[in-house]
């Protein structure tokens, strides 16, 4: 029986049974066979391979406020679902689908993939310092998951790749939270002191997604600069592994945030000044919140106890400088190299940069 007869017969049977059959009338792109690319060498059936024919057309503007999959036929009865982001420029990066699959391929398990049995007692000061750092990184993991997660309900299906990738960011952030909590509670220590959290307000208060992205670049850059010193900071193989695995995750997040901001700056250059405004805010809160707990704990570790901490603070200052340099480095990659000349005054001191000339203030 030719295919058209098969379908006609199917329709008849459905209709006789009182079932709708209009789904059989939809013209099918019969050539779409993503499975053909799914070889072991190509990483299996990765999401990138789905982007063929109409299904791969990511629209500049998506105008459907329902859960309709990109490429499906709309049902106009559907209630609107409250999405608010319908612009490709606001969320897109071509890397999303690939980073999503990478995140899954790179997945790890804090219970089993960390050699916890390598932990060994260290001096009380050191254990306190490690636990203090663990507490603050946990806190950031929690914040990152919460604040990333809330964007899911805002982004429409047109940009499904972005949403899938953000799902992995949420999950990675959960792990960031718990692996450090585990470290704090597994070696005779406990949790330290929580941070004041003001610096996180630019994440929680974002009104646009790209604003959230630049604030994330700042915070992720601060963290990754620290994680990259894992080889110096870790006392054991377990810790070294934690630093490495977390670094790998954060690096992946930054790839997206940076590539998205680059895309936005190219597509909507008129938003440059607005984006600087958001960086002003993020930096102001970071500088103002700056309590010295984190850096003091680093000093205790690098100084091998409280006695050596004072001397080690010069090293810590170099590390803090690297944080700012790293942040500015990522911004250069997004075509936001002009940030260097506008960096917050306090952060300039952290980085040892010359002061900005005082601008004329018009006090209105």
């Amino acid at each position, binding site marked *: 029986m030719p295919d058209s007869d*098969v379908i006609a017969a*199917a329709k008849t049977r*459905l209709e006789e049974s009182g*079932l*709708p059959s*209009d*789904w*059989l009338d*939809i013209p*099918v792109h*019969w050539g*779409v066979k993503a*499975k053909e690319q*799914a070889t072991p060498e190509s990483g*299996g059936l990765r999401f990138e391979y789905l982007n063929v*024919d109409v299904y791969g057309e990511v629209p500049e503007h998506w105008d459907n406020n329902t*859960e*309709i*999959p990109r490429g*499906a*036929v709309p*049902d106009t*009865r*559907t209630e609107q679902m409250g999405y608010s982001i319908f612009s490709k420029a606001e969320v897109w990066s071509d890397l999303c689908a690939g980073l999503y699959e990478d995140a899954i391929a790179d997945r790890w398990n*804090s219970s089993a993939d*960390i050699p916890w049995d390598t932990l060994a007692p260290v001096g009380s000061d050191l254990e*306190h310092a490690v636990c*203090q750092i663990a507490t603050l990184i946990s806190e*950031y993991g929690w914040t990152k998951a*919460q*604040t990333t*997660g809330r964007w899911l309900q805002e982004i429409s299906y047109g940009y*499904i790749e972005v949403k*899938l990738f953000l799902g992995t960011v*949420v*999950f990675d952030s959960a792990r960031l*939270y*718990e692996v450090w909590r*585990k470290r704090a*509670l*597994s070696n005779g220590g*406990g949790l330290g002191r*929580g941070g*004041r*959290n003001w610096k996180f*307000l630019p994440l*929680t208060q974002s009104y646009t997604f790209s604003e959230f992205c630049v604030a994330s670049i700042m915070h992720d850059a601060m963290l990754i600069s620290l994680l990259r010193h894992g080889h110096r900071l870790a006392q054991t193989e377990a810790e070294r592994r934690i630093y490495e695995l977390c670094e790998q995750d954060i*690096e992946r997040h930054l790839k997206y945030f940076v590539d998205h901001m680059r895309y936005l700056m190219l597509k909507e250059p008129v938003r440059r000044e607005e984006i600087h405004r958001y960086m002003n805010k993020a930096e102001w809160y970071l500088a103002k919140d700056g*309590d010295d*707990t984190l850096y*003091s*704990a680093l000093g*205790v570790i690098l100084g091998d106890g409280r006695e050596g901490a004072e001397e080690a603070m010069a090293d810590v*200052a170099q590390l*803090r*400088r690297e944080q700012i340099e*790293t942040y500015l480095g*990522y911004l250069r990659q997004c075509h936001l190299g002009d940030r260097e000349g506008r960096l917050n005054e306090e952060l300039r*001191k952290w980085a040892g*940069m010359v002061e900005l000339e005082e601008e004329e203030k018009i006090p209105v």
Partner: protein
Amino acid sequence: MVTVDKLEELNLEPEVPELDLSWLNLDTEWGVSAEPGRKGLTLQQINKSLYGEIPATSADSSARPRGAAPPEGATPRMTPWVLGDATETFSDSAALLYDEAVSRQWSSATDIPWDTMDELPEDIERAMVQLCTSLTEVEFIAGDVPGKWLPRIAADHYESGLFLMSQVMDEARHTDVFRKRALANGGGLLLQGGGGGLRQIIEAEDFTQMSSMLHILGEGFVQSLFRLGELIAHNEAEKRIFRLAAQDESRHVAYGVTHLKYTLDNDPDKAEEVHWTLDMFENTLVDPDQQNPGLAGALVYLLGDGDVDEGWRLFWHVRRKQVLEYLHRLDVAGLSGRLESGRLHPSLSGALDN
């Protein structure tokens, strides 16, 4: 990786942070040594001493981990508000379910034997991609909803937070795998589902009401169906998809059931509110105005492998199982009597007679 370039204009020594050692003398619980067990170092193993005690209420909207000392100075309101009562969001199984979620992650790219999918007859392929179109929609919302609730979970009840974060990941993978199936074998995406209760889940402004719709009724029905995935699947790839997805759904359903149980154990008055929600949601699911034309037809067609009468017979078999398992879950959660009191929607109780 960004290389750390020396900034050209950098010509001063960086400011040295002040050394403050006050955090060396905090009043937090100290001397905790969780030991890894058979599955490594799980959340349950670190939930010891003070760190394992779940506060019945939390007024802390900050990100401070449970058990950490409060900072000096003021903290801002981090999120508009948190659900401070444990009865609002907690589940005794959340930590365990998160641990399971982490250890049972799978990859839709590499863990599905896509090469087992041969060409299917066109009617069957169409029915399958129509089913997958509907499923990818459902899973899409199922990820948005926990995302919406994350900022409202108190850090003091972090177990529920972590569980929801794992659900976001699971649902991303489900959205993904059904889209992959739709586009893998020649069919493509077909007809949108038209609602069918998805809006009701995302618009709910009470966590327990949301969870009773999403986790217990919605994902419960889906899980019952997926566990009968053999009836629908035509090759090993499809079987594996349903099996792995069902495993994920089981965790979500378990969270919903144990959360509702926790809530009702501690706040029995909440029962009537949940009944009301289920009245509404059951009605939505069977409302002719909400019907999903694609899903209904495709599912029956697939179940009968093209024989619509046989499909109907099996449909009622599936539906009966869905309803029985739904009622069982409510029983376990402590919300019994919907069938006996005649409160269960007639279209669902009717399924039990088939």
